[in-house]
């Protein structure tokens, strides 16, 4: 592609170094805590990449929601909005998709599935509509409003699985299994569902949108320098930020639909282990580049899949992987900062 989307290899090397730093630190921590680092890291590798099954069903499966949500976060970011509420939008989308699946279960799959996606997109967008309006009308920072709505979404999903959407017997806090027509096809022999393809397609579409379309260019301009975009590009930067925020909410909602229709087949209260937050890191690591997000999403998917294996095989608590993720993010931030030229002094 041309100038605006040239793919620089330098970020790749810094990311790799950051990952190495995280793993070295992990090994040191494990050794200090009396574990065998080699065994633990070996287990991690096997859990993530050790077999076709592990790669697809553990790594790529986990990567799917991270990639999708990360793409949405990046879209908002490049349009000038900071969406910290993907967790809530994910649940809103999951609720909407589950609801739609029951309404549409009678339809054939090629119809039912896209319609559940539509419902989820709408659900996610609706959930972020409040922050958009609060920002445009009252100037409330979306960082705060999207964050607060995460707490509300947690309560809402609990309400849904105990109330209107609870399984018919009314015993378990979960919905009934969604109809077969609304379930995503699986890659044979694995648990990887077609949602991964959706994530890839979305990444390609977003790369195209941002790099090649006039609209995408205006969005980036509005995000990069809102005043200039307004005065020179004659775009309403606030509106673009709002649209980008809405789109990112919708995309997080879609991730919720993919999780319900590809993995859990029912609505649960604990559908997400914090995808909304991890996805921020995924998007950052790729510096907002859609194709990079696919790569970093897979990396984080692998880390978390590996963490499971590490616990199974070496008894290392899987939460430890969060430390690795944090170190990777912080190392990338530090490396970026070093490479950045400082802006000119006041008065120069």
């Amino acid at each position, binding site marked *: 592609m041309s100038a605006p989307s040239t793919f620089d290899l330098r970020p790749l090397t810094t990311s790799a170094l950051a990952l190495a730093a995280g793993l070295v630190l992990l090994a040191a921590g494990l050794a200090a805590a009396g574990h065998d680092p080699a065994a633990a890291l070996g287990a991690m590798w096997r859990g993530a990449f050790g077999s076709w099954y592990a790669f697809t069903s*553990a790594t790529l499966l986990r990567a799917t929601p991270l990639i999708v949500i990360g793409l949405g976060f990046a879209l908002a970011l490049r349009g000038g909005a900071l969406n910290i509420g993907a967790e809530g939008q994910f649940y809103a989308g999951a609720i909407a998709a589950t609801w739609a699946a029951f309404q549409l279960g009678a339809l054939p799959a090629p119809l039912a599935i896209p319609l559940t996606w539509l419902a989820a997109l709408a659900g996610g967008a609706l959930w972020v509509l409040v922050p958009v309006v609060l920002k445009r009308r009252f100037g409330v920072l979306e960082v705060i409003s999207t964050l607060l709505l995460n707490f509300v979404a947690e309560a809402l999903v609990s309400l849904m699985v105990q109330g209107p959407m609870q399984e018919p017997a009314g015993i378990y806090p979960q919905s009934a299994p969604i109809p077969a027509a609304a379930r995503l096809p699986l890659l044979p022999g694995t*648990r990887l569902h077609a949602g991964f393809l959706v994530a890839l397609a979305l990444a390609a579409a977003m790369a195209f949108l941002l790099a090649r379309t006039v609209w995408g260019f205006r969005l980036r301009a509005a995000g990069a320098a809102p005043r200039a975009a307004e005065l020179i590009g004659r775009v309403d930067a606030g509106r673009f930020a709002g649209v980008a925020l809405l789109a990112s909410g919708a995309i997080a909602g879609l991730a919720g639909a993919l999780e319900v229709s590809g993995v859990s087949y029912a609505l649960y209260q604990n559908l997400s282990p914090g995808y909304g937050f991890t996805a921020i890191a995924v998007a950052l690591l790729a510096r907002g580049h859609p194709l990079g997000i696919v790569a970093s999403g897979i990396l984080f998917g692998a880390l978390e899949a590996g963490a499971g294996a590490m616990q199974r095989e070496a008894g290392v608590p899987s939460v430890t992987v969060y430390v690795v993720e944090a170190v990777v993010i912080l190392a990338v931030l530090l490396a970026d900062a070093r490479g950045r030229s400082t802006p000119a002094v006041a008065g120069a």
Partner: protein
Amino acid sequence: GGGGQREGFRVALVTPGSIADAAWNAGAYAGLGQVRDSLGAVVSHVEARTPAEQEEALRTYAAEGYAVVFGHGFEFQGAAERVAADHPNTVFIITSGERVRGNVAPLVFRLHEASRLAGLAAGALTRTGVIGFVGGIELPPIREAYEAWAAGAAVTRPGVESRFTYLNNFDDAAAGREAAHALIRQGADVLHHNADAAALGVFQAVRETPGTWIFGANADQAALAPERVVASAVIDLPRAILAVAREVKEGRFTPRVESFGLASGVIRFEVNPRARAALPDSVWALVVRVRDSIAAAAP
């Protein structure tokens, strides 16, 4: 399916949360340790919080040839059924599970039988006629425990008002404390809970409010407030897990709904000797009578 049987008897546990919760997950993990020690099994544990992780964990263990895989919570039922079809040689035990499906079998804990006894005592104990319950998340066993507790109290104190509060998590102990205080301000003077780590705050509220009593849950929690814990509704998870694992090892296991109540000894009503004097012997006699009749009626 995979399931090529490897050397040794292998048992795995998948918990939906951290094993450092001092309750539900911790108990299961302790059980796994006993399986290792008593049966000489090779054991493994993993924590799987989401449906995506849960199914993966079950499937991976099955593929590696584990003989028994415990899915520790009702939420594993669906995933286990999907996995079990491909792995007929592995036994999947779902604690708090729903039904038998091939090699998937539930372990049901009738903790509510003990909670009913707690209710009986609470009804006799309350001066205000109001009792309170703090739940973590409204899961079926938790709701059943609450309902049995309320029903028990209504026997000894007709017209008792029972109140409940849910926290929507099992971690926020400070919220547990505030929930308890709110119940106490509403007049509740006897409390019960099922909120794992968050319940530690409930005990704190009781410790700092004179004239209140509490009944523990899951483990014998008398130590948390030695003067105020009347009794605890206890699940002996290790015992149950060990029993099932032994059956499988010895080839005696047949898939069935294995339900543990007071009769089994897995569910117990542990009275705190230091607080026993709080209630007249007549009440204790009633509690013992009901306990025995529940145990006798058990299948």
